[in-house]
């Protein structure tokens, strides 16, 4: 048996509520981390996964306290140690890589200096040796030209590079255990794939044990040997990564895997009903009882114990795991999306360009924007009534910018946005008449920000009703109840504040507010990326249902290609504010495709240990679109030469009606493309 580095024994952490009740965040957790293994801790927000990871380095968040149990590292209990002794362990023996490296690095110190600081603290090297070690570390995390990187400030690096620096700093003390708290969550798909690959390499190269905390099963699948699934502060399933992803024997994991949209499967995944119970709300019975499809009467009043199954080397907390064991694999069933596509064109963007450049005085006087290389350029899209079109691309690709311009929040530099074939939507919000504003509604990424925290649900939904239709009194109330029912929320939600709702419920309220205006077009800006996976599927299903009922057109912005695949009829791929490829989603996801689409598709992480991401291009970040030629020239692995750098590529149309903007002939494109 391999050596155990960290032993967590019966750990419970919680806080005291105002009424003096003890509320548990972690309930009786026991697990071991072995030398050299990577353990993934997965769970929804609020499941206690981060609290567990922090406890593993002897840290309990302010306001929380240890109720019982211990975290043993090298046979001493970290939770009982003095700070002075902990300092010797943290960094040297156990290192942490935070979620947001941009915030974890001190903004006004150079990268080299910050790593040097870590080395001074956590190693006994002399000054000359340290200098060499810095470039060694930066080399190890595969940063180009370590000498120049060391002289830069954190803001001069991209998100992926910052995360690499954070990894380098964590490695400075050559730790035995590395804790990673959602290290790739804020990153672009391609960058994420690169960072995960790096972490895999480091795990192998240094033999460090890793604890990888994430809500993303796709990322967990790529790195971990063993997976711990947490739900409501408890371990519900623990076992070898492959078994858990292929044959989950706990109903929660089973449902979770079913609710993740996959690239290989069009249509909406099945959603899991309900949401995770709030800490302290559970008193008896299984915490997953009310969302479980396999529950029985006894689950209501008896809490199952974590049971170790020797033949599978897996621990499971369920009475009925046997019925799942027979149900071999996760057979994903999807609800096929119905399209009520009409030929009528509802929105037409032609030659739209948008610039963020600061206006010069002369331009201000003449009220024009002059910028020969605008952020977004040459956007031509026809959107048909009842269609769901998705704009995809990495951050900085201009997809949200285009949405803002359609909503009128951002002035366009040139081009025409036409509604219903004849109505010109003026680019300025103030010049649009109220009806033009009503027909286009927005749903935002984060419902915490898009709902006023000081308004009740009733007040939130009443706003568009009052503004556009002048409803009052009983009629207003009736309409609000009606809308709440449409988004599957009860009447009693009216008097609640957003903070009293779960993430999914908040997003439903935001959806209800958008539909209150009876719009023709709804712009969805990353509407599911702030939600937990199990809730995401439910919101997607709701959006689809509402679309079928009302015949609304969706313009859907997302960086998640699997979500886009699930919900959209047509996809437009953007890079640096220029269109690369437009076509029906089933064709865009097949080859041949634009080299950039290939990069994006290759980097998608699937919750399957057998499907590895394919890293085609480097994850360089370009700050500005190139002046001339193809927008993707800087990162393209199939660049032809001068032609790509000097001429804007032509549109090529494939047999299936998919348009690709590339100099490489279609036949050539298909060759060598991975499929």
């Amino acid at each position, binding site marked *: 048996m391999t050596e155990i580095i960290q032993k967590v024994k019966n750990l419970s952490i919680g*806080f005291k*509520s*105002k009424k003096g009740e003890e*509320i548990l965040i972690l309930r009786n957790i026991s697990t071991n981390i072995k030398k050299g293994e990577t353990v993934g801790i997965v769970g929804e927000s609020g499941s206690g996964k981060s609290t567990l990871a922090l406890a593993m380095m002897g*840290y309990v*968040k*302010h*306001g929380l306290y240890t109720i019982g149990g211990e975290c043993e590292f090298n046979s001493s209990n970290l939770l009982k140690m003095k*700070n002075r002794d902990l300092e010797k362990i943290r960094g040297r023996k156990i290192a942490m890589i935070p979620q947001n490296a941009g915030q974890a690095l001190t903004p006004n110190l150079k990268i080299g200096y910050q790593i040097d600081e870590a080395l001074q603290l956590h190693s006994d090297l002399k000054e000359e040796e340290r200098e060499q070690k810095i470039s060694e570390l930066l080399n190890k995390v595969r940063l180009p030209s370590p000498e120049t990187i060391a002289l830069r400030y954190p803001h001069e690096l991209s998100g992926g590079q910052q995360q690499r620096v954070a990894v380098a700093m964590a490695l400075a003390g050559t730790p035995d255990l590395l804790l990673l708290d959602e290290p790739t969550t804020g990153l672009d798909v391609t960058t994420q794939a690169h960072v995960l690959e790096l972490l895999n390499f480091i795990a192998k190269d240094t033999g460090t044990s890793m604890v990888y905390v994430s809500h993303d099963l796709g990322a967990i699948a790529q790195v971990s040997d063993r997976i711990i699934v947490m739900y409501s502060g408890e371990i519900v399933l623990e076992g070898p990564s492959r078994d858990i992803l292929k044959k989950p024997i706990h109903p929660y994991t089973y449902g979770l895997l079913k609710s993740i949209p996959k690239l290989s499967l069009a249509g909406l995944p099945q959603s899991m009903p309900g949401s995770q119970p*709030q*800490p*302290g709300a559970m008193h008896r019975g299984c915490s997953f009882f009310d969302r479980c499809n396999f529950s029985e009467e006894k689950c209501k009043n008896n809490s199952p114990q974590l049971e170790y199954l020797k033949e599978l080397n897996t621990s499971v907390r369920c009475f009925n795991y046997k019925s799942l064991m027979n149900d071999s694999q996760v057979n994903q069933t999807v609800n096929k999306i119905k399209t009520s596509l009409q030929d009528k064109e509802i929105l037409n963007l032609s030659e739209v360009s948008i610039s963020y450049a600061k206006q010069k005085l002369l331009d201000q006087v003449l009220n024009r924007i002059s910028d020969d290389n605008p952020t977004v350029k040459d956007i031509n899209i026809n959107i048909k009534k009842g269609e769901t079109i998705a704009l995809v691309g990495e951050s900085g690709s201009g997809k949200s910018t285009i949405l803002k311009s359609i*909503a*009128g*929040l951002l002035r366009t530099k040139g081009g025409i946005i036409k509604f219903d074939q004849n109505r010109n939507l003026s680019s300025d*919000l103030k010049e*649009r008449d*109220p009806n033009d*504003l*009503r027909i*286009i*509604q*927005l749903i*935002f*990424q*984060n419902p915490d*920000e*898009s*709902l*006023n*925290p*000081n*308004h*009740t649900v009733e007040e939130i939904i009443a*706003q*568009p009703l009052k*503004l*556009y239709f002048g409803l009052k009194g009983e009629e207003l109330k009736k309409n609000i109840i009606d809308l709440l029912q449409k988004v599957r929320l009860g009447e009693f939600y009216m*008097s*609640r*504040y957003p*903070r*009293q709702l779960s993430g999914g419920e908040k997003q439903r309220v935001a959806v209800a*507010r958008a539909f209150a*205006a009876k719009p023709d077009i709804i712009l969805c800006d990353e509407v599911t990326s702030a939600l937990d996976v199990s809730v995401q599927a439910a919101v997607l299903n709701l959006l689809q249902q509402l679309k079928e009922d009302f015949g609304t057109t969706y313009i859907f912005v997302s960086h998640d290609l699997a979500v886009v695949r699930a919900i959209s009829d047509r996809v437009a791929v953007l890079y640096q504010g220029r269109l690369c490829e437009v076509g029906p989603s089933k064709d865009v996801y097949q080859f041949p495709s634009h080299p950039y689409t290939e990069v994006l598709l290759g980097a998608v992480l699937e919750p399957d240990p057998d499907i590895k991401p394919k890293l085609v291009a480097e994850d360089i970040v370009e700050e500005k679109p190139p002046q001339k030629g193809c927008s993707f020239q800087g990162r393209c692995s199939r660049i032809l030469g001068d032609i790509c750098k000097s001429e804007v590529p032509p549109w090529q149309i494939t047999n299936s009606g998919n348009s690709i903007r590339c100099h490489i002939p279609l036949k050539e494109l298909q060759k060598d493309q991975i499929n």
Partner: protein
Amino acid sequence: MKLDNIYQEEKKSNFAKVSEIIITMASRPSGFIGLSILIFHVILAFISPYIAPYDFKAINPTLMLQAPSAEYWFGTDDLGRDVFTRTILGGRTALTITFFGSLIALLWGGLLGIFCGLVGGKTDDIVMRIVDAFLSIPWILAMLLIVSLLGTSTEVLIPALGFFYGKGIVRVARAATHDVIAKDFIVSARARGHSNFSIIWNEIIPNVRDAILVEGAMRWSWMLLGFSSLSFLGFGVSPPTPDWGLMISNARGLMSFAYWSVIAPIVGLSSLIIGINLTADAFAKALGIDRSTKAPV
């Protein structure tokens, strides 16, 4: 802890909200002391005319500078007036004028700040530079100028103080608005086509109200000190009306042999200021605005 909010289910009435805030404030020792002092002073201001043992303006040369005794608790001043009577009456004018002064400051400073924060751009630039220009004028000089031109009546003092103490609130309100306007619910209201007025009233004010109220409470204590300074210089309340600033000014020359006549008003003034400050602090903590939490680890 914030997590407790989750368990509060239904919408609360405004009365319930206010009483909850007051209870939270009083649950901290500093908040309890502050509130008690403030309430004591307010009640005293209301009832002092009825409980004052002597006439505040009765001059009696035979009783000049008497030390505290059973008859004259805080002694008498250089004109033989009872210091206790004058002390309990001395806070009334100051409290009233500064209370209304702070309300005015709160109103104009808060609204202008929110407006500037919302519209931004050139309007914001111009207004804020004007505010900065006013901030650079020593307020006491400006106040002296106004008072010597327009007199020391209440109708002049309240708006003048309100104006000079509102400038600081403009900045706070603007900063608080900036925190809010980047949020998507404002973008959402804009995209729906709500007017600026509607956005300020419905979306911004509920979110910045607390910060502005706390700032207003702080300004109140500063204004009290400022008003007393004016009185001290002889530009606030005119004699023989009892006022702490004026009393300190009159008695300061006698400090070496008749300390009682100066100590009483000083204790009155400083306790009120401390009371307001502690209350404002507790108010901020109860609303969760005060972010002075312990650093991690």
